[in-house]
């Protein structure tokens, strides 16, 4: 059994079919099909299945590449990264890195792939309870610097060299997709009421949110922010950021360091 399964699996996933006489030793002909034609049914379905699975997770990448190029890159990808999971949902986990390695000049494409991978991860993450909007305000003033905000699990923070979110929106709007000019952008992807939301950010708020989500206390985050931007965040912008983030449902708990 093992030998037959090893052979057949290899014959299905290999780029080229095995020799016809090799197939005929193991597989019988039907009324209408030779053994190698019968095997080809499985080979063809495998290729289609892999491409469909990756197109589900990376529809904008597929659109940007076009059918021909996407087909070829998928074939190369599954040779290098065959599925090792019981679920096809994990098939595309290494796709962004693979694109970066095999198409090193397509930076916007890499950013777009990272965005789409983050969307699939956020879609499936565990649901987290949200803190009440007043919970931060209720923290005593002398404990605010020691406050640590725990992000929801369904949150990913991404910085890009290209406007990947704009590119993705072109796809969503069924507009022509053209590789954009280089421009740093920042994005939070989160889930609210089981919908995946893309929240464009600017560099200062993104930096602060990244520090907070990395586990820094608010006090440490402000110090790190000031070191990076040569000034601490203004109180009004800090207030606005936390108001918006809490309203968006990005946090699941408040911890006070030392308690």
């Amino acid at each position, binding site marked *: *059994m*093992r030998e*037959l*399964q*090893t052979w*057949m*699996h290899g014959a*299905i*996933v290999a780029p080229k079919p095995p020799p016809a006489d090799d197939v005929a*030793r*193991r*597989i*019988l002909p*039907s*009324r*209408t*099909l030779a*053994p190698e*034609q*019968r*095997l080809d*049914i*499985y080979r063809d*379905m*495998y290729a289609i*299945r892999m491409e469909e*699975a990756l197109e589900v997770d990376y529809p904008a990448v597929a659109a940007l590449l076009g059918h021909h190029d996407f087909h070829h890159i998928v074939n190369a990808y599954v040779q290098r990264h*065959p*599925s*090792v*999971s*019981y*679920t*096809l*949902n994990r098939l595309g986990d290494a796709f962004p890195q693979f694109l970066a390695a095999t198409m090193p000049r397509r930076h916007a494409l890499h950013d777009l792939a990272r965005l789409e991978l983050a969307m699939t991860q956020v*879609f*499936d*993450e*565990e*649901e987290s309870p949200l803190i009440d909007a007043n919970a931060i305000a209720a923290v005593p003033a002398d404990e605010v610097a020691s406050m640590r905000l725990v992000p929801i*699990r*369904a949150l990913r923070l991404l910085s890009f060299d290209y406007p990947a979110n704009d590119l993705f929106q072109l796809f969503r709007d069924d507009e022509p997709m053209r590789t954009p000019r280089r421009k740093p952008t920042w994005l939070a992807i989160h*889930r609210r009421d*089981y*919908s995946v939301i893309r929240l464009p950010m600017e560099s200062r708020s993104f930096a602060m949110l990244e520090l907070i989500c990395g586990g820094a206390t608010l006090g440490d985050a402000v110090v790190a922010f000031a070191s990076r931007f040569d000034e601490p965040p203004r109180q009004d912008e800090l207030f606005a950021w936390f108001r918006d983030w809490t309203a968006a449902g990005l946090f699941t708990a408040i911890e006070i360091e030392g308690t």
Partner: protein
Amino acid sequence: MNRFGYPDLGIGLGLRTTHYSHILGNSPPAGWFEALSENYLDTGGRPAFVLDKIAERYPVVLHGVSMSIGGTDPLDFDYLRKLKALAKRVNARWISDHLCWTGVAGRNAHDLLPLPYDEQTLRHCVERVRIVSDFLERPLVIENPSSYVEFAQTTMSEWEFIARLATEADCGLLLDVNNIYVSAFNHSFDADEYIDAMPADRIVQIHLAGHTNHGTHIIDTHTGHVIDEVWSLYADACRRFGDVSTMVEWDADIPEFDVVFAEALKAAVYRSDVREVACA
């Protein structure tokens, strides 16, 4: 009634993402839903939320494609643990998977790959079905596959293999009538003989589906309406096995819920309660 006491749930449907909103919003009068296990094992998002809601309103059964009961890799107990937990969460009436293998050496082709039907393979499958049933603490239900190749080393018919597997592993059977039709065409066997050979007291569920006929062979695509020849086989199955939980699978070019449900409801005319009314 099957020997396991798994109930006749009437006419149901395969739960598909495209129908989530319709089902939650309209509570259609389906008897039950079959959820594809793997779609709900690793998600805490909308699929899990929807399945939980549906399980509050309808009986749910779990149907998997990744158990690889005929595989030669070790059984995946991480997968089985998650499956068992999911079944408990949604109060699954039973758990089914296919008579097939899906990959080797840790690599998954994500296909329901065919087995040679011989004594060695039978012994292997019997042992694995027993292990899985023990682990899940319920008799596993095994579906007959559709297939496109026959192996030179095969020594018995598929129906003999499945009947013996069911008896010797003490498992239930999910009889896919469309798969019988597809494989009968592809391998030139008699579908009636197949159905006649099935142990009636182990039939827990029946699948119906459309397929794609390429002339030289048929592919089990789960698309389109169930053809008349498959309905005819289903009528034979109903006469032989009595009323069994029945559903339609529709997985490609999926139409609106009402279209799929109407297709499934065609099965009602073959059930005994309707037959008896018609004869009275």
